[in-house]
């Protein structure tokens, strides 16, 4: 379509547009209004805040484990409590913190970066959040009623199967996974549709900010990985436990190893689902704070895409100790080493950007530097673990624990903290205290290395994972004491971070729209953004639209402001295609989530509750989709 329009001098009455938008995008007041919110900033922030609360919970669990292990023969926690706590820790961090917080950052930032007003499916977005929240509360309800899962965050049968996994603990885990996966799939679907179809005019594929590229690739990974864990946890594990199927029962032709395959076909991509958005955050922080365009944009995009593809071919390296055919093991060793190449390319691109730029050492940049150090160390142990002889030796030891904490905390948590400091002015309208931010960084950095580096050595000395205590003759005492000391330093860093965020939110210096002088479109919106983001949505003329002179910038007019309308553009070149009214806010996503939850939680007791879930969810969806009165149906 040849709709790429010629710019003309602005004639629109901006103030009138603004007041009309304020009215149409306003959220209703009261409890009902609060439950009905579908604007992406509010939903994104709910994701982020909820995820940070779960991070705190997971952190407390980690601390309890560290205290228990600090000295030999400790009796602070019983073996049973310890099992529940380490399982809940892993489950919380993977399912309730890492993925949702990345989704939340995406939901918040992607529409702003693309220059649009909301995500493509705002009600689905709200529904996803409520499902996530209910799933999280469900897990903690289990923990507090002594029904916390106790079989590890991947719940291998036969330990988790009907024979050994007695009680409802495993069922709580299995169905909690369903809630969080539904939520992740909702966000993935809406972000892909948003990124492909709702970009600012002229934001061609090779002008999309790298964070949005990251979210796009991550969302596709979610689409292809999450169904796998739903099959593992509900189709295989839960039905084996509730209605007597035999997927994991070798006596009847099933196979516990099949569960491991299906689980890790999700579980390995999951690592990249967490890590790839973090890469996007690093790119945003680095280009802003080196005052130059990112080095090697095409190489960056291609290596993110390649990471996603290779990420689906690695899952068996979690299963090297299960005695698989050697030809298969050799393939997965090669693939596991190959993924270091794509990560390496990106690190060299960032280094080149920093080398040739003029670095401003903000708190966010500190976290990026910390990422380089920690992630590269984790990557190196990753290459070591890809070698089968070494893997067999240290399988299920603290060496592995050290490795994946280096990769996940270094690769995702440090960039996330950096991103949080970087975008804090956008979220709140106020600057975060940079000095406290840097102190936070050093506490976390030192505490992290002190906690997790000794674990490499403990693993090499034979200390296995998931033991609740150990006799002093093993000689593991000093390493564990050191690790616990490190954990306490992390705790101080965490408290400082929370205090800084709460204090700066209220008393920080007012930030203005673009305090860092960044180049991407989220900084063109007010801080914090209005519900509609932009009075005149921007058009895009380069990768860094805000680094072009003001007189060359172009805005979009002609979208209706008497309803929630957005511009839909073409997939490749982002040519304006049509206008598209988004649905208004609605209580029904919340109601549908509650109704579905009743059935899904019931299903851990009896399969029949699935039918209840179907009927109740249908009622919810009817309310959701039923056309309103004529005026609203047209609006």
């Amino acid at each position: 379509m040849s709709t790429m329009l010629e710019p003309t001098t602005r004639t629109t009455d901006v103030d009138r547009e603004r007041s009309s938008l304020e009215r149409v995008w306003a959220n209703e007041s009261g409890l009902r209004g609060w439950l009905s919110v579908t604007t992406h900033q509010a939903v994104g922030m709910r994701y982020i805040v909820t995820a940070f609360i779960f991070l705190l919970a997971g952190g407390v669990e980690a601390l309890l484990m560290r205290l228990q292990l600090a000295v030999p023969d400790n009796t602070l926690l019983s073996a049973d409590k310890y099992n529940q706590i380490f399982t809940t820790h892993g489950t919380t961090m993977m399912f309730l913190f890492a993925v949702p917080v990345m989704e939340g950052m995406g939901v918040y930032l992607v529409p702003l970066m693309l220059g649009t007003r909301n995500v493509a499916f705002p009600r689905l977005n709200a529904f996803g959040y409520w499902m996530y929240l209910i799933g999280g509360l469900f897990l903690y309800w289990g923990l507090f009623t002594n029904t916390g899962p106790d079989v590890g965050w991947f719940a291998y049968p036969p330990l988790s199967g009907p024979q050994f996994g007695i009680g409802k603990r495993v069922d709580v885990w299995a169905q909690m996974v369903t809630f969080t996966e539904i939520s992740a799939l909702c966000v993935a679907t809406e972000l892909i549709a948003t990124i492909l179809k709702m970009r600012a005019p002229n934001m061609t594929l090779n002008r999309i900010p790298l964070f949005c590229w990251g979210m796009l690739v991550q969302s596709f990974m979610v689409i292809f990985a999450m169904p796998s864990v739903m099959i593992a946890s509900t189709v295989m594990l839960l039905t084996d436990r509730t209605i007597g199927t035999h997927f994991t029962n070798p006596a009847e032709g099933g196979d516990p190893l099949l569960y491991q395959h299906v689980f890790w076909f999700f579980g390995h991509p999951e690592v990249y689902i967490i890590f790839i958005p973090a890469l996007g955050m690093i790119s945003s922080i680095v280009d802003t704070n080196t005052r130059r365009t990112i080095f090697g944009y095409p190489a960056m995009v291609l290596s993110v895409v390649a990471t996603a593809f290779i990420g689906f071919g690695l899952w068996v390296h979690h299963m090297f100790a299960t005695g698989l055919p050697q030809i298969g093991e050799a393939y997965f060793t090669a693939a596991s080493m190959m993924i270091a190449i794509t990560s390496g390319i990106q690190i060299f691109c960032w280094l080149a950007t920093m080398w040739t730029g003029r670095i401003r050492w903000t708190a966010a940049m500190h976290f990026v530097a910390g990422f380089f150090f920690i992630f590269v160390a984790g990557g190196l142990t990753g290459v070591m673990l890809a070698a089968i002889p070494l893997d067999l030796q240290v399988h299920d030891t603290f060496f592995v624990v050290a490795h994946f904490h280096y990769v996940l905390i270094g690769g995702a948590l440090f960039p996330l903290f950096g991103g949080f400091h970087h975008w804090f002015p956008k979220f709140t309208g106020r600057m975060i205290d940079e000095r406290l931010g840097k102190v936070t960084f050093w506490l976390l950095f030192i505490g992290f290395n002190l906690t997790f580096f000794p674990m490499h050595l403990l693993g090499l000395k034979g200390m296995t994972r998931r033991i609740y205590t150990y006799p002093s003759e093993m000689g593991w005492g000093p390493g564990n004491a050191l690790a616990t000391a490190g954990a306490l330093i992390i705790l101080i860093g965490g408290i400082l971070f929370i205090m800084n965020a709460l204090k700066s939110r209220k008393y920080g210096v007012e930030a203005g729209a673009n305090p860092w002088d960044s180049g991407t479109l989220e900084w063109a919106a007010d801080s914090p953004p209005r519900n509609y983001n932009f009075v005149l949505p921007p058009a895009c003329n380069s990768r860094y639209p805000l680094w072009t002179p003001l007189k060359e910038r172009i805005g979009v007019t002609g979208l209706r402001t008497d309803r929630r309308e957005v511009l839909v553009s073409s997939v490749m070149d982002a040519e304006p295609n049509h206008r598209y009214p988004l649905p208004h806010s609605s209580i029904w996503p919340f109601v549908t989530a509650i109704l579905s939850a009743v059935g899904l939680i019931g299903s851990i007791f009896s399969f029949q509750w699935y039918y209840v879930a179907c009927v109740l969810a249908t009622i919810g969806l009817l309310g959701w989709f039923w056309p309103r009165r004529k005026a609203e149906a047209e609006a």
Partner: protein
Amino acid sequence: MMPQHTIDVSHLRDYEISSEAPLWWGQVLLAAIEGTMFCIMIAMYFYIRLSMDMWPPPGIQLPREVLPAICTLLLIASCAGTYIASEASKKDDRAGMIRGLVINLVLAIGSMACRGIAWYQWNFKWTSTAYGSITWGVLFLHTLDVAADLIFTLVLVILLVIGHHSPRQRLGVHVDSIIWYFLVAIWIPLYVTVFWGPHIVGAP
């Protein structure tokens, strides 16, 4: 800081009933999610086959061919109704949409009836070895998806009959066709796996 130059998009259409609509993409992604799920189920079917000596195991009769074949043919035929409805939605032809969706519903419900009768004739349940588990698992998941889409289609028909055919419902009819084509298309490999599989990869 407002830009001084603007492009005006007010002349663009407000709705597009085609692959340009974001909802179309949402629906394609839903198909991708379900497609992934079914591909994994097929992989599981053959994986479990490898760990059993007899397929199907002794005492379980081979699935019969006739009814499932009729069921499959009816499903494929029902796409004609979907096609009529989706073409009509682009032209805002309310009668055409209703006609197409009703054809779709009638043939699909007929197909599901055949499926139900075929199940009734089987002599095994999901608790009869892993063979029973995976076979019933595949059929249950597909039937669940089909049922969900048929309910959605039924709701669309009711909306159209009582007079709602704004672009929002028309787009609904159009994207409904995406997921229906997908459910029929994915049924073909599932059908081949579940009903021909035991003949192809089964031991004596």
